[in-house]
């Protein structure tokens, strides 16, 4: 039976992690159908149909789907579930909010945040903030799986021409009302997909001091991350948090500045290819995962870092 992939989008474009989720879905079964639920989301449906790995697109429109309320989305998927062996979605806040509502309605024990497809019923997933990995096998007939997007490559985004089928909307749930979304717009690369991430922690001492990080991020075309301590202290907004309960990032280069390296933070970044730690405490646990550690006062090191970068003839973007 086919796999149903729930696309994440903003009614116009697919969110980038949808492409990673499609890759994971295709590793479960070749027959990947993708569903886009939204309002005026024809463009997103079209983009989905162009993914060569997607064999069919299901397009569902209604006013009450505009803001991705899980209570409205879940019945649409549950209604279609008979035709599918697996329902798959990214394990970001969209999928985390939605998938368990579907799984419970289908009386299925969900498997969250997989990092590897071992076979169509067996998956690898991190537990204890990534300090252990469990191989788990689902005994349910129907499987609900969320995937960790950074553990799968994004799929080809063009060349396909899957048919787009319209499906009927379900009734509005009615007792949950979307009020507003405060999205922080930025010209920088997205934290989850950036090639370089530079993060600040409590050691930054103030939100103002994040300017030191911003100027280096500009130079390296990097996304800006933060430890939970920095977000809790109000130095920077929550969408920058990297860690067990924040975002998981796997950039080519991760620079941790003034971050001690609690296991909850390491959970979100320790798979990065190259890790740099700048911290004045030589005993900080962050050094245990760093490829390059610099024991220094960040207020001296960061301006020097910028200066050294300025001396380089070329910088990779």
């Amino acid at each position: 039976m086919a796999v149903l992939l729930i696309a994440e989008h903003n009614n116009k474009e697919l969110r980038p992690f949808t492409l990673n989720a499609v890759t994971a879905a295709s590793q479960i079964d070749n027959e990947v159908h993708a569903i886009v639920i939204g309002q005026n989301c024809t463009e997103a449906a079209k983009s989905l149909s162009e993914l060569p790995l997607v064999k069919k697109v299901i397009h569902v429109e209604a006013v009450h789907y505009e803001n991705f309320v899980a209570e409205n989305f879940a019945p649409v998927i549950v209604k279609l579930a008979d035709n599918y062996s697996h329902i798959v979605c990214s394990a970001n806040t969209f999928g985390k909010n939605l998938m368990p509502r579907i799984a419970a309605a289908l009386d299925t024990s969900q498997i969250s945040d997989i990092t590897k497809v071992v076979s169509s019923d067996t998956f690898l997933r991190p537990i204890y903030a990534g300090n252990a990995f469990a191989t788990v096998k689902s005994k349910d007939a129907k499987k609900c799986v969320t995937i960790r997007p950074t553990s799968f490559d994004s799929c080809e985004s063009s060349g396909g021409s899957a048919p787009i089928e319209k499906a009927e909307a379900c009734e509005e749930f009615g007792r949950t009302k979307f009020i507003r979304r405060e999205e922080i717009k930025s010209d920088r690369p997205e934290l989850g997909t950036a090639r370089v991430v530079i993060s600040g922690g409590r050691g930054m001492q103030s939100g103002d001091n994040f300017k030191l990080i911003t100027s280096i991020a500009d130079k390296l075309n990097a996304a800006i991350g933060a430890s939970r301590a920095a977000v809790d202290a109000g130095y920077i907004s929550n969408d920058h948090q990297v860690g067990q309960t924040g975002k998981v990032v796997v950039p080519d280069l991760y620079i941790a500045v003034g971050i001690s390296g609690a296991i909850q933070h390491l959970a979100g970044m320790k798979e990065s290819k190259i890790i740099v730690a700048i911290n004045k405490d030589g005993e900080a646990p962050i050094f245990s995962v760093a490829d390059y550690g610099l024991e220094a006062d960040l207020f001296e090191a960061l301006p020097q870092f910028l200066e050294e970068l300025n001396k380089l003839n070329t910088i990779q973007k």
Partner: protein
Amino acid sequence: MKILVAVKRVVDYNVQIRVKEDGSGIITDNVKMSTNPPDDNATEEAVKIKEAGKSKEVVAVTIGEEKAQETVRKALAVGADRGIHVKIDGIIEPLAVAKILQKVVEKEKPDLVFMGKQAIDDDCNQTGQMLSALLNWPQATFASKIEVKDKKLEVTREIDEGLETVEINIPAIVTCDLRLNEPRYASLPNIMKAKKKPIEQLNASDLGVDTSSRIEQIKVEEPPKRKAGIKVSSVAELVQKLKNEAKVI
């Protein structure tokens, strides 16, 4: 208004866990256990709402082995009025937890159910949403701010793109983020008083819920170790290494 708070006993967040040699799980013998951190935020929020005069009773519930009762006791020590302990041994999957909680909700008839957004042991992030589905109640997950209005809650949710605000009708489920509040510490007199507060004991097997495992854990292993890095002595050396050795800038 009555608030039910669900709390889970987990390995303390400061413990560096170790995997059993036979790959059957992680070592929990003689390991410090605590309440799952965001569950403390859930209790704190319920108690704050009660202190503001908007709730009459806060009931703390846990599901698990005998010792899980400690988490209820802790909730009682910071202001919950009474407790419920649903006894069951072994690993219980979130779906089974949600089904047990559904039974507790049917019995207690709370207006709100609060719990942490995720347990830091299995990192599933499912139970609240599943309970909402089973009850067909509204859900507000990853809450960093809750405002109680007449028969409604306005909840600010932390999402990947920033913040989202939703209004949900009561009865409803809220799963709490660590930034929702600052959980208080229990004072010694309150710990003593909590010992006198009632904890009702229930057996999961008496609730008529299917708690059988649907997921077989085949093995648990340690993550691949990173190879040891080096310390550099200057920023200039760091930039040179990143450019010429790691070739990442």
